[in-house]
C-alpha cells in the first residue's frame, strides 16, 4: 500500500453530533426583506431603537458585496432561500426554569454531552443553550447574580439592560464592518450576553452551546461580553449541527469589551457538521469575532475548529489601551473536502502592547487549511511586540496548507517576530509507531495531539480533554 493509500483508506469518519431532533418548530418562510426583520423584532418584543438599528443594518447590507478574498470556494448563496427565524413551539412562552423546558430539547443537549441540571453539571459551568434561533435556557443565573454577574440571552438583555446594549452593541464590530456581520446585525435572532462588574472575578466558567437543527435555516447569533474594570471571565462556546445534505449558513458576531485591567478568556470548540467525504452538506461558518482591550486589559482567544464545510473566521483584538495584551491560540482541522480560512488580526494602537499568535493547522484528506493573519503596529504603538508562530501539519498528499501573514509596521520601535513550519505525518513516523505496537489511527491521533499541545494547554482543563477527544474522533479513519 502506498503512503497515500494508507492515509486515505478510511478518511471518512463518524460525526457523533449528526442526529436530528424531532420537535415541533415555528419557522419563518424563507426570504429576507424589511418585513421579515420587523417580524423578528416583534417576536422578541424589542424596543424601537433595536428595530431601527436592524433596519439600518439591512439597508447597509443591501449595498455591500460578498467578500471573495478568502481561500475558499463555494457556490453563490441565495439569501432568499434561507429562513431567518426558527424556534421550538414549546418556547412560545419562555420557560422560567429547567423543569419547564421541553424534555425533547433537554434530551438533545444530553445526547451532546452538555451538562443540564444545575446539580449534575461539570464543576461550576453555567450554560446558555441556543437552539436554532432562540436561547432555550440559561443556567445558574441566580447564583451568578449574587456577585453582580449578568449572564442571559441577548434578547433578554435588549429588554432588561438597554443602556448596556445601546452603549456596547456594535461598538467593536460596527454595523457595516463586513458583509456577513452587517447581515447578522439585521437578522440576529439571539445569543448570549455577559456583564462582569468592576473588580469581580466571575465565580464560574460561562458557556454557550449553539445547536442548529432545522433545515434551510440560517443561524445568526450574537454574543456580547463586557468585562468591567479589573474583572475576569472565562467563556466557552460549543457548536454542533445535524448531518444534512444541504449546506446551512451560520453567520455569528462576537464582541468583547475588556475595560481597564480586565481579562477575558474566550474559548471555542467548533464542531459544526463538516459535510461528507465528497463535500456534500455541511455548515458555512462565516463569523466575525473581535475584542477591544483598554489599558492593561487582556483578551485571549483560543479556538479548536474541527467542523464546518467552510470556516471563515478571524478572531481579532484591538489593543487600544497601553500595555494591553492580545492572544490567539488556534487549532484548525480541515479534512474530507473541508475548507478553513482562519487566523487573527492584532491591531496595536497603544504603547507597549503585546500580542501572541500560535496557529496550528491540520490538513487531511482533500482538506484545505489557510492561516490568514494581520499584525498591525500603528504609529503610536511605541515598544509594541508581536510573536507569531504558524505551524501546518499535512496528513496524506491530497491536502493543502497556505499561510498568509500580513505585517504592517508603522512604528520603528515595534518588534514583530514570525515563525512558520510545515510538516507531514510521514510514513516513516507511522511505521515507527506501528513497529512499536501502536495502531496507525492511534499513532496519527498521538502525533496530531503532540502537534497541538501548545494550544490545548490554553483551554480550560475539562475542555482540553474534550478537544483532544474531538480531534481523535474527527481524525478517525485518517489512516489505514
Amino acid at each position, binding site marked *: 500500500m502506498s503512503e497515500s493509500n494508507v492515509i486515505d483508506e478510511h478518511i471518512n469518519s463518524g460525526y457523533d453530533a449528526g442526529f436530528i431532533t424531532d420537535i415541533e418548530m415555528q419557522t419563518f418562510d424563507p426570504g429576507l426583506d424589511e418585513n421579515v426583520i420587523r417580524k423578528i423584532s416583534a417576536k422578541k418584543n424589542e424596543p424601537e431603537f433595536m428595530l431601527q438599528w436592524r433596519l439600518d443594518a439591512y439597508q447597509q447590507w443591501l449595498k455591500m458585496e460578498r467578500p471573495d478574498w478568502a481561500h475558499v470556494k463555494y457556490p453563490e448563496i441565495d439569501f432568499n432561500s434561507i429562513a431567518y427565524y426558527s424556534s421550538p413551539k414549546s418556547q412560545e412562552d419562555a420557560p422560567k426554569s429547567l423543569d419547564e423546558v421541553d424534555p425533547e430539547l433537554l434530551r438533545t443537549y444530553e445526547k451532546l454531552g452538555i451538562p443540564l441540571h444545575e446539580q449534575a453539571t461539570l464543576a461550576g459551568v453555567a450554560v446558555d443553550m441556543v437552539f436554532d434561533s432562540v436561547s432555550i435556557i440559561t443556567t445558574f443565573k441566580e447564583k451568578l447574580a449574587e456577585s453582580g454577574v449578568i449572564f442571559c440571552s441577548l434578547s433578554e438583555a435588549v429588554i432588561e439592560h438597554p443602556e448596556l446594549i445601546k452603549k456596547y452593541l456594535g461598538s467593536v464590530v460596527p454595523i457595516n464592518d463586513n458583509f456577513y456581520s452587517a447581515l447578522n446585525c439585521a437578522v440576529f435572532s439571539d445569543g448570549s450576553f455577559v456583564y462582569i462588574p468592576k473588580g469581580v472575578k466571575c465565580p464560574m466558567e460561562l458557556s454557550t452551546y449553539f445547536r442548529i437543527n432545522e433545515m434551510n435555516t440560517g443561524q445568526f447569533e450574537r454574543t456580547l461580553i463586557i468585562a468591567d474594570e479589573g474583572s475576569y471571565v472565562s467563556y466557552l462556546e460549543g457548536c454542533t449541527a445535524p448531518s444534512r445534505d444541504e449546506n446551512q449558513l451560520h453567520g455569528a458576531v462576537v464582541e468583547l469589551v475588556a475595560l481597564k485591567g480586565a481579562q477575558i478568556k474566550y474559548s471555542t470548540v467548533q464542531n459544526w457538521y463538516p459535510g461528507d467525504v465528497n463535500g456534500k452538506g455541511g455548515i458555512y461558518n462565516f463569523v466575525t469575532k473581535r475584542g477591544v482591550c483598554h489599558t492593561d486589559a487582556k483578551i485571549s482567544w483560543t479556538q479548536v475548529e474541527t467542523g464546518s464545510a467552510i470556516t471563515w473566521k478571524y478572531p481579532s483584538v484591538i489593543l487600544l489601551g497601553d500595555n494591553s495584551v492580545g492572544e490567539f491560540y488556534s487549532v484548525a482541522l480541515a479534512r474530507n473536502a473541508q475548507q478553513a480560512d482562519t487566523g487573527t488580526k492584532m491591531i496595536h494602537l497603544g504603547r507597549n502592547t503585546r500580542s501572541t499568535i500560535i496557529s496550528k493547522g491540520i490538513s487531511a484528506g482533500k482538506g484545505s487549511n489557510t492561516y490568514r493573519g494581520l499584525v498591525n503596529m500603528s504609529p503610536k504603538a511605541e515598544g509594541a511586540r508581536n510573536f507569531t508562530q504558524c505551524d501546518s501539519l499535512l496528513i496524506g498528499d491530497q491536502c493543502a496548507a497556505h499561510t498568509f501573514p500580513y505585517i504592517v509596521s508603522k512604528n520603528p520601535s515595534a518588534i514583530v517576530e514570525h515563525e512558520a513550519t510545515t510538516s507531514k505525518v510521514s510514513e516513516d513516523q507511522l*511505521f515507527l509507531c506501528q513497529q512499536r*505496537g501502536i495502531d496507525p489511527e492511534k499513532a496519527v491521533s498521538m502525533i496530531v495531539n503532540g502537534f497541538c499541545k501548545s494550544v490545548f494547554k490554553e483551554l480550560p482543563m475539562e475542555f482540553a480533554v474534550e478537544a483532544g477527544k474531538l480531534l481523535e474522533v474527527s481524525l478517525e479513519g485518517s489512516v489505514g
Partner: protein
Amino acid sequence: MLKIANLRATVDDKEILKGLNIEVKPGEVHAIMGPNGSGKSTLSNVLAGRDNYHTTDGTVLFEGKDLLTLAPEERAREGVFLAFQYPVEIPGVSNLEFLKTSLECLHTHQNKPLLSAVEFMKLAREKCKLVDLDTDFLKRGVNEGFSGGEKKRNDILQMLMLEPTLCLLDETDSGLDIDALKVVADGINALRSPDRSFVLITHYQRLLDYVQPDFVHVLVDGQIVKSGGSELALELEEKGYSWLESGTEQPANSLKA
C-alpha cells in the same frame, strides 16, 4: 524462533532479496554483514512489515506463525522489534508518552497487567540509566533534536522497555562513539537470554567484540553467500567483500545456521 526460507522481495518492482535463507534459534545472536545496497535494511523492513516491500516468494515463520500475514503492529505485539538504521523524529510526542502507549499496546495484546503510572516511571528511569540517557530525554519529543548517537541509544531504551523476543538491530552501532558503542552493547547483553534472539546488521567488527555472535552471515546482492562463526567477521574485516562477490562460494540454500 525465526525461519526464513527462500525469501524473495521487491521494492518498487525491483527485486532486492533473491532467495534468502536464515534460521535463528532461541537464544542465538546472528550478525548479518554485507556491502552497501546488498539488501540488509530491506530484509529488516520486510520482516517488520513495511509498506511497499512485497514478498514474491518464500516464507517467514516466527515462533511457528506466518509472519508475513500480520500487520506491522501485530508483529510488534508478538515480540518482533526493529531498531532502525535511521530513527525518525516525532516532534511534540514525548518519549514518555510514546513509550507508555507502546508498552500498553504490547501488554494488552500479551494479556499482561498494565503498569501503574508510578511503576512505569520507575521502569523508564531505570532503563534510561542503563543506556546512559538523562531522564530529561523522557520529556523531549521522540528523537526530536537528538544527536545521531542519542537516537540509537533511544532505540535501545525502547528495546529494553518492551522486552521483545526477536530483536532486529539495523546498524545500531553506526555513528556511535566508543562509549556509546559500549552502552549499546551492554543494552543488548543485558537482554540476552535463552528465549530471546538477536539479528545484528552491522558493518564493523567492533560491535561484535562486545556482543559475541553465534553466527555471521554475509549478504551479497540479495542472497546469503557465506555463513560461519564469529571468526568470519574478522576475516571480512581483513579481506573485505570482493572475494565473495564474484559468485556464491556455497549454494546459499544448503546453509543451516
